[in-house]
């Protein structure tokens, strides 16, 4: 692997992931297609409409998943457990919880995401909290903040943004375009910049990266900030799409974002990232939930099925990854 930072200053032209990835990259998309076909069967008819609707819904999950992926890639098993609350808080802010014109509200919402990420990052890197504990504690503090903010009306979404977000043309939608744009930016960040190289180096060996001069603490903070910003974006976009913020709007994004990352093939030990994989993972999770809703089962049955399905899918992905690792180890 060529991602050694500072080595001779030469720009590595190979991406920092192993070359056998095409097969690994293909299967999440194949699984998504299979799920879509099953959903069509359940709903009683072959439908591209279903696929595009799911694609649109999956956007929000995908962005959240990208955030989790960045945090995870740094290699110490951190997740951002405050993500759902960041989404909800950003949603409320952008929908009118503070009195300011719409564009400013959106900026503040994303800035709040940044601040949350910074707090998580500082607790984790400077105060040496485990990432999970730091974000858990911050998450609960945010939860209380949201209780305050909930009291204010939260349905004033900028008219222009609302119409733009819901633009659709032949199945493709503005939301999808936004997602692809953001995903491309993240992918470029990870594959082509020094930041990306540092991130992958950190994940592969924290100690070696530190010795090679990677600014580990700053990187940890940056990772959480990226995740927080993405979460803020999700809050803003989701609120614009729905026409308002509502309590617990972020709740389903915790399990979904984590599952999307794991299913998409990003190894939990860090060191590798796969933007495409996470997008596919988000689509798979969204199709799963859509399928469950199509069955019109009770909330309890839906929750149970979602939990079992996620465990099954994630366990399957984990087993497959483990088999691949053993094979690679044996092949050497």
């Amino acid at each position, binding site marked *: 692997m060529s991602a050694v930072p500072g080595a001779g200053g030469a720009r590595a032209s190979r991406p920092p992931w192993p070359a056998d990835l095409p097969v690994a990259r293909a299967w999440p998309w194949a699984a998504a297609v299979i799920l879509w076909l099953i959903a069509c069967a359940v709903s009683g008819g072959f439908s591209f409409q279903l696929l595009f609707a799911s694609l649109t819904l999956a956007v929000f999950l995908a962005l959240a998943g990208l955030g989790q992926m960045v945090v995870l890639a740094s290699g110490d098993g951190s997740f951002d457990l405050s993500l759902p609350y960041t989404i909800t808080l950003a949603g409320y802010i952008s929908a009118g919880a503070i009195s300011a014109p719409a564009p400013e509200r959106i900026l503040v919402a994303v800035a709040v995401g940044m601040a949350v990420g910074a707090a998580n990052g500082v607790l984790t890197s400077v105060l040496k*909290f485990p990432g999970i504990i730091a974000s858990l504690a911050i998450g609960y503090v945010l939860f209380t903040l949201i209780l305050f903010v909930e009291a204010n009306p939260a349905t004033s979404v900028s008219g222009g943004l609302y119409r733009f977000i819901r633009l659709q043309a032949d199945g493709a939608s503005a939301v999808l375009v936004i997602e692809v744009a953001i995903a491309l930016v993240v992918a470029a960040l990870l594959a082509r910049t020094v930041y990306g190289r540092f991130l992958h180096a950190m994940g592969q060996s924290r100690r070696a990266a530190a010795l090679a001069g990677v600014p580990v603490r700053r990187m940890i903070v940056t990772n959480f900030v990226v995740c927080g910003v993405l979460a803020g974006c999700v809050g803003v976009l989701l609120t614009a799409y729905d026409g308002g913020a509502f309590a617990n709007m972020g709740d389903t994004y915790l399990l979904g974002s984590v599952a999307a990352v794991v299913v998409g093939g990003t190894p939990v030990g860090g060191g590798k990232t796969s933007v495409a994989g996470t997008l596919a993972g988000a689509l798979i999770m969204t199709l799963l939930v859509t399928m469950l809703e199509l069955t019109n089962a*009770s909330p309890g049955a839906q929750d149970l099925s979602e939990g079992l399905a996620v*465990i099954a899918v994630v*366990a399957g992905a*984990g087993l497959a990854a483990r088999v691949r690792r053993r094979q690679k180890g044996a092949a050497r």
Partner: protein
Amino acid sequence: MSGTAGGQAVLLPDPGAWRPRLADGTRAVAGLRDARAGVSVVLLIIMVAGLLLRDPRALTSVGVDLLLQSALPVVLVAMGQQFIILAGDFDIGIGYAVGLANVVAATLLVSNVGLGILALAGIVAAYVAMAVIIEVTEVPGIVITLGGSFVWLGLGLLMQPAPGGAVPGWLAGALGAFLPGIPEPVYLTVGLAVAGFLILRRSAWGAGLRGFGGSRKAFVRTGRSPLAARAALYALAGLCVVGAGLMTTVVFASSDVNGSQTLTLASVAAVIIGGGQFIGGVVDPIGTVLAAVALSVVPVLLGGFNVNTNYQPAVEGVILILVMTLRWAAQRRGAAQ
């Protein structure tokens, strides 16, 4: 300090020894004199002082009885989380698991004792199943427990879509079988703390489990099975979950699968404040119990001072952050010497 990972001492397992050796060569002080539990004692004293300020009757027999009664579910949940953290994972669904046990106890256990006991045993078995999945698939524990939280919630809602249920008479009565004078909850709380201490700190089995948490590679090299160790820890956690559910049923005389949600944060906070470390297989069983009791006082204090109880999670979060910051500062000072 040599051998630290991210500034925290990594405990090397020494399965036969009572006092684990720290990576810098010194031996950790184990037992009641361990400084780790000190913070939770201080916290408890602060909480009780706050209570007394509000109502001087807080330390009477009745006051202690009431206090510890509501503390017992928190204590049990914290003990359960403690075993999971010892395994190197984090059970984010433990609140819902307790909720499910609560629902089972207040419905099945009342109508059909045999089926109820079977269902509760099923919860323990499900925890062991989670452990097996984690070991075999090498997926991080938190993802599995996160999925598990939906399973618990779904099952609980299926069994009881809205709060209700009742206490099985024999269960409430069973708690009355102690000496008069000292309230029963005291026995239970002290008993749990001592049991945890004996299991984890004074038995070879417990030392082995802590070794598993400390360094998996070294544990495997001693020839033991990591799967058995993780399964054992999760089984212990499952038992604690069932116990917490039973206690919740007795305390509230009803059940609500969503009612125990806040226990998840409290359980993690109690383990960490009580002296546990997320990485390295370090937990202090007595500290965990003390911290759990202290944390269970928070909602009472909030109510007593007329503060909105919605603040409870934030207060617990802030306490957790403060304690961990103090610990970080102490470690820095220690390393600088």
